[in-house]
């Protein structure tokens, strides 16, 4: 029988409406903290409106020397998922693990699903071992290979689907769209690089961050430092690099958005190679490089323009 709803019943309905609304808001906001600017971008793409992405490590910060603050740890503890590059990139990651387990935060490590690359030391034969990275170390900068990024996008899709099963259709559709755009980006990169003679495909950078890009696209790579920005360049290594640049007639060398290009400037002065521009080595930047696609396009355009 329909009739006017009594005042107490009205209050009960309002109470349940709030409950329903509350659970909807919660389901619509999967909280994801990220130690990786690249994975944060992928998470926003895959998660869309259902996911709130909090960047712990932000663009422009040197992630090799970053240490989470107590505030960061609190933010991570309030999240359902934490994204990390892995492969040793976040040296503090193992220290975070007990807190993650205690607070039920699921850890998603991109490096777990990529094909790892062994770091190569420049001037291996005449090595003086005065810098700090260990031989046989894995290169953690996996995002410079687009197939790796596609694998991690799929990994993020699956993690989101597990944490928020109601959003599976959204995550699947967004990840499919993202992977198609990454495939188009891959073709764009190959078309741009086809204008660059193979003999010119030599990358000289501050630290060894572009190894995956080099392998994918047929570049040789020479670096002042090892796989970390904390590796100290030795004078012998710099001397060897200068000889290599001169003998190979390398046209340009590249600075990185976060590094101090002082050593590279010294090398340009002694070799006559020009400073080819700034590359985004350790993650995303600002402006056009604020997205993965934009970062990759910026790097490729800078490389082609300087070396062709």
């Amino acid at each position: 029988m329909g009739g006017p709803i009594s005042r107490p019943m009205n209050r009960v309905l309002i109470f349940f409406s709030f409950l329903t609304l509350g659970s909807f808001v919660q389901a619509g906001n999967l909280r994801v903290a990220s130690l990786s600017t690249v994975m944060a971008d992928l998470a926003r793409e895959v998660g869309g409106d259902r996911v709130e992405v909090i960047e712990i490590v932000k663009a422009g910060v040197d992630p090799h020397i970053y240490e989470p603050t107590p505030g960061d740890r609190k933010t991570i503890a309030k999240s359902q998922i934490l994204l990390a590059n892995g492969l040793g990139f976040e040296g503090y990651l193992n220290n975070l693990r007990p807190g993650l387990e205690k607070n039920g935060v699921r850890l998603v490590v991109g490096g777990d699903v990529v094909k790892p690359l062994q770091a190569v030391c420049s001037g291996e034969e005449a090595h003086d071992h005065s810098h700090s990275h260990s031989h046989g170390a894995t290169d953690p900068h996996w995002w410079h290979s687009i197939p790796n990024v596609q694998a991690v996008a799929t990994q993020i899709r699956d993690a989101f689907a597990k944490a928020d099963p109601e959003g599976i259709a959204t995550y699947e559709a967004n990840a499919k769209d993202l992977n198609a755009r990454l495939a188009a980006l891959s073709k764009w990169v190959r078309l741009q690089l086809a204008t660059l003679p193979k003999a010119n495909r030599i990358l000289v950078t501050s630290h060894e961050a572009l190894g995956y890009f080099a392998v994918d696209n047929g570049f040789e790579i020479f670096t002042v430092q090892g796989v970390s920005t904390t590796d100290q360049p030795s004078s012998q290594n710099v001397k060897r690099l200068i000889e290599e640049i001169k003998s190979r007639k390398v046209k340009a060398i590249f600075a990185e958005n976060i590094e101090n290009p002082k050593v590279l400037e010294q090398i340009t002065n002694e070799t006559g190679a020009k400073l080819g521009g700034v590359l985004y080595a350790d993650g995303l930047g600002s402006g056009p490089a604020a997205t993965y696609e934009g970062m990759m396009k910026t790097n490729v355009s800078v490389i082609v323009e300087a070396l062709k």
Partner: protein
Amino acid sequence: MAAYDILLTASAPARLAVRVANQPSAESTGPATSLSASFTMNAAEPEDLAVFANFDPAGGNCALRVEVRVAGKTISDSSFWGTGLVEDVVAIPNP
């Protein structure tokens, strides 16, 4: 050095082009179903080919075939499909 003969074949008339780093590109003067070009390259490290076929977008799915020959022998044969602009890169195998 070796002469690489390139043959582009399109499934429908299209503006065809093939580009090699540091060399003048070869382009059809208008819509065509084939284009031949020859590039002299270092046989130890031949450059990649950037190939383009701009089809009428209303023509649906179209194909571009790219054959690479050296001294009459086919060393690479690949096909690309798409609608409108079909573009890709062909890596020539080292001998």
